[in-house]
């Protein structure tokens, strides 16, 4: 390991070091504020260190990790996502769990896992990143002890996610048996030289895809999603829906790109097929939900469906840069939006111990009581619905471009259809939020701390900025791909 290697890995090192520091801090002083502050600080530092690391990127550090701009971009995203989650969690976890300090430690480890996934170019690092992310999440989901729903959610997630991991591993084992290598790029080179027959390769790849598709909650592997999202504490749901998904998606995309799995047309067509199913089923399932968390869970299924269009768009190799760009932009936009949406739910139920989920009528008139939160929700919903001037629209526009350029008409049609259905449930939230309140229908006031307010403002500004002035990010993405 050289100095350059350390520099390239500096985000990971900062996060891991931060985790150690946190552990020590907890051992000596239990203080939520301090832990939270340290967490946010560490993540900010990690995000900053990405800039440092970017100076020498791309650099492969051991066969496991590849520090390139693509990975670093997502590290920044995940660290910011983690920091936002930490900020949002502070009040929430104080009221919902005892000994809340380890929560932040787990969050840090989880973020580390996500970052590892972004770096991963090897089965081992993929496996470890995935599991680091997941194992921390099991604990995080089950963290609140005032309610039983988190337990149920964690148990479901653990069992199913474990099964999915095992499936993916088995698939990798088959690929390894056929090719003799665990590095993605080398794997791609060996695929055509194998003596074991194409069916093993295809089956292995399909099993890998199944495992990762489960984590992405693609239809038909989506059934767990609403239950887990619903039961998990709201900030963690946000983290799960944004950072965790983005990390897995990045890893999957990198696997496909590096190993050039796009050569198996049937595999890519299956991704397209599942994308269609996800778009339709996700939107249809969300249609009449009154529980906002579940609604957002279903909508996240749909959004992953939109995102999976990228894979089909990648079939023609000269379209891959555009498609990857689109994916990256989409993930950034989607992460910001999701954190905003779930952040709002966090703030609403932060002070209500007994309330784990938020029904539509709970947010009746929110816009009038808490204009800032209402505004945040409005922006988040519009962004999810893909209305121009929000990040979600530019992201969708990117997908449109990638898909049109890749001639994926059926997917586009489904995308439009799905978006059409989606408008209904997103706007229903807006409608409830802007309802005039009857006199007798008094909603409890929500106390919002100053840092949550600041975060809300930043998120609103971020989403709008990504939607109105996307050029700088686009240019950056274009330059690194």
């Amino acid at each position: 390991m050289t100095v350059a290697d350390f520099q390239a890995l500096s985000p990971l090192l900062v996060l891991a070091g931060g985790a150690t520091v946190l552990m020590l801090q907890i051992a000596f002083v239990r203080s939520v504020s301090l832990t939270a502050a340290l967490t946010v600080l560490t993540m900010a530092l990690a995000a900053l260190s990405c800039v440092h690391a970017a100076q020498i990127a791309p650099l492969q550090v051991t066969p496991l990790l590849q520090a390139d701009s693509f990975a670093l971009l997502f590290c920044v995203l995940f660290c910011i996502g983690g920091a936002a989650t930490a900020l949002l969690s502070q009040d929430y976890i104080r009221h919902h769990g005892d000994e809340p300090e380890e929560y932040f430690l787990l969050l840090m480890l989880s973020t580390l896992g996500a970052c590892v996934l972004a770096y991963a170019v090897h089965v081992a690092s993929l496996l470890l990143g995935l599991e680091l992310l997941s194992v921390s999440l099991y604990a995080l989901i089950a963290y609140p002890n005032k309610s039983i729903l988190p337990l149920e959610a964690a148990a479901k997630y653990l069992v199913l996610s474990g099964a999915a991991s095992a499936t993916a591993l088995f698939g990798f084992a088959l690929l390894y048996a056929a090719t003799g290598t665990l590095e993605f790029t080398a794997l791609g080179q060996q695929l055509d030289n194998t003596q074991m027959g194409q069916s093993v390769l295809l089956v292995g790849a399909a099993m890998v895809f199944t495992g990762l598709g489960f984590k992405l909650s693609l239809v038909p592997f989506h059934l767990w999603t609403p239950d887990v999202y619903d039961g998990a504490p709201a900030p963690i749901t946000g983290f799960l829906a944004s950072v965790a998904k983005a990390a897995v998606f990045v890893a999957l995309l990198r696997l496909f790109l590096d190993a050039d799995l796009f050569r198996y047309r049937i595999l890519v067509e299956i991704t397209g097929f599942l994308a269609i199913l996800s778009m339709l089923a996700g939107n249809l399932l969300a249609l009449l939900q009154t529980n906002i968390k579940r609604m957002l869970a279903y909508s996240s299924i749909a959004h992953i469906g939109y995102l999976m269009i990228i894979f089909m768009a990648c079939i023609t190799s000269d379209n891959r840069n555009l498609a990857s760009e689109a994916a990256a932009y989409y993930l950034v936009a989607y992460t910001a939006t999701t954190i905003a949406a779930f952040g709002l739910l966090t703030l609403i139920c932060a002070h209500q111990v007994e309330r784990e989920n938020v029904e539509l009528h709970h947010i009746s008139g929110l816009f009038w009581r808490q204009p800032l939160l209402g505004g945040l929700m409005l922006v988040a919903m519009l962004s999810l619905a893909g209305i121009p001037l929000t990040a979600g629209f530019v992201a969708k526009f990117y997908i449109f471009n990638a898909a049109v350029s890749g001639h994926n008409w059926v997917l586009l049609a489904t995308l439009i259809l799905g978006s059409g259905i989606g408008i209904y449930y997103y706007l229903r939230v807006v409608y409830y939020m802007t309802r005039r309140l009857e006199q007798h229908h008094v909603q409890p006031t929500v106390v919002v701390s100053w840092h949550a307010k600041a975060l809300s403002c930043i998120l609103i500004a971020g989403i709008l900025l990504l939607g109105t002035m996307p050029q700088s990010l686009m240019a950056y993405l274009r330059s690194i791909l």
Partner: protein
Amino acid sequence: MTTLWLIPLFPLLSATLLVLSAGRMPRQLAALLGAGSVGLSAICVALVARTYLADGQVQELTLWTWMAVDNFTPRIAFYIDGLTVVMMSVITGVGFLIHLYSIEFLWDDESFCRYFAYMNLFVAAMLLLVMADNLLLLYLGWEGVGACSYLLVGFWYRDPDNGAAARKAFVVTRVGDTAMFLGLLLLYTELGTLDIQPLMAAANSQWQVGDTLPILATALLLGGAVGKSAQLPLHTWLPDAMAGPTPVSALIHAATMVTAGVYLIARNYELFLLAPPTLAAVAWIGLATLLLAGFTALAQHDIKRILAYSTISQIGYMFLALGVGAFASGIFHLMTHAFFKALLFLAAGAVIHCLHHEHNIFRMGGLRRRLPVVFWSFLIGSAALAALPFTSGFYSKDAILLSAWTLPGIGPWLWAGGLLGALLTGIYSFRLVFIVFFGEAHTEPDQQPGWRMSGALIVLCVLSLVGGWFALPLAGVLPDKDHAHVSHAVEFISIGTPLLGLLIAYLLFLGRQVSIASLAESPWGKALQDFWYSGWRIDKLYDALLVQPFKCLAHWWRNEPVDLFYNALVALSRWAHGRLITLQTGELRWYATSLVFGLVLLLAIMLRNAS
């Protein structure tokens, strides 16, 4: 001629002022404005007419270009020739008298101002109609008078029946107007202009007599004329339009607006001459209408309805005249009809006014001595209507009948039909006189008409009597039939028929009255009377064929059938949601099974494609 634009402007201005006053103007002032403006117009018309009679020069005035798109450049411009002068004179002259009469008739009405506003607006629109130098401006006036007619028929808006009558008037005429609208489109598309004189020239140069296009175009124009002039088959609105105040009926539904169709055909006679089948249709429509309306008038009870049917019938004569090519005679009859029918309506109005709004003639009677001015007016009017010799109606109707006779081929048939109509006219008009003014009184009048009413009546009496001696300045403007050499026998029959009608009426209604009662009570007689009373059941027919189906359709569609499709989409989504959501059982084992299911599916697809 610079005063031309003043002619429609006076009433228009007056109408605007009356509208803007929002009903708060003192009655005296409103009356002065309302009648005075028409009077001023009449003076201007007189000036114009004098100039025209002096030199016979067509006068034109362009105010501004209405719109200019490509070569479509209709102007707001006036064209004054003999025909226009006649029409303007009738409109402003008779109009002024009726306005004068109205002041007294409606003095107690709360909407006095509104009334005069509408009336003035009407006069302005009617003037535009006759003065227009192009068909589009004519159409503006045409629709304008229709709208005013609607407003005035529904003037007493509290009674929904009046509203229904008004709407019927507007919608039925609109049917005709739409045909005319299409006619205008056809003319413009084919000939490239709507200015009447160039249009005629272009038609003459581009089309031959009997071509399809002129026939189509004139047929469409005829549609408009039929609607406005209450001819078959669009005549049904006029009797109902009697719901309006009586002076309105006099002005709009007798003297002026309803004759617009006649004017339209006369104005475009060169076009119609290119289309002999249309012209024949005009004649036949006129004949059929005059007979149908004549029979119907025989069976009515309502004094105004009788007059309304008689109007329809008389316009039938005008159409007959136009159809046989006697355009000038048609216009002549238009003028005399304006005089005597206005007189009749105003006299009827005076009766109604003095008898507390009584309309049923069988509740009147014996008014001869009680309302002498009215009686004499009515008598003179009826005489002119029945075309008794030396009244104005006699000259005009006689000219029409003789023109029909001279037409080769179908002429005698038309003549005979017209003669039958004349007989009917004699019967029903004197039936009215005898029942209302003779016999015993059923209702006592509580007032006498004042000087304005009486004055208007007297002037119109004079006009009805002497109107037949006017020489209309139509020579060279409109063609006419020469009937100097018609045999005396024919002339004699023509003169005698109305007298026969008078005699029959006398026998039936002023004599013993035995025969008519027994006739009416026989089954056949009763059926016939009912049939005629209902206007040959045409209203019912239209109701069953058009009105009800339309209402049914509207009712059937009222909840938006197209939405069924979208609602089905919504229902489909909801159904799919319901199906999918049942998969979310919350059971971990089932979730695991779905995972395996997906895996099995994926692997199956892979294996299928690998081999």
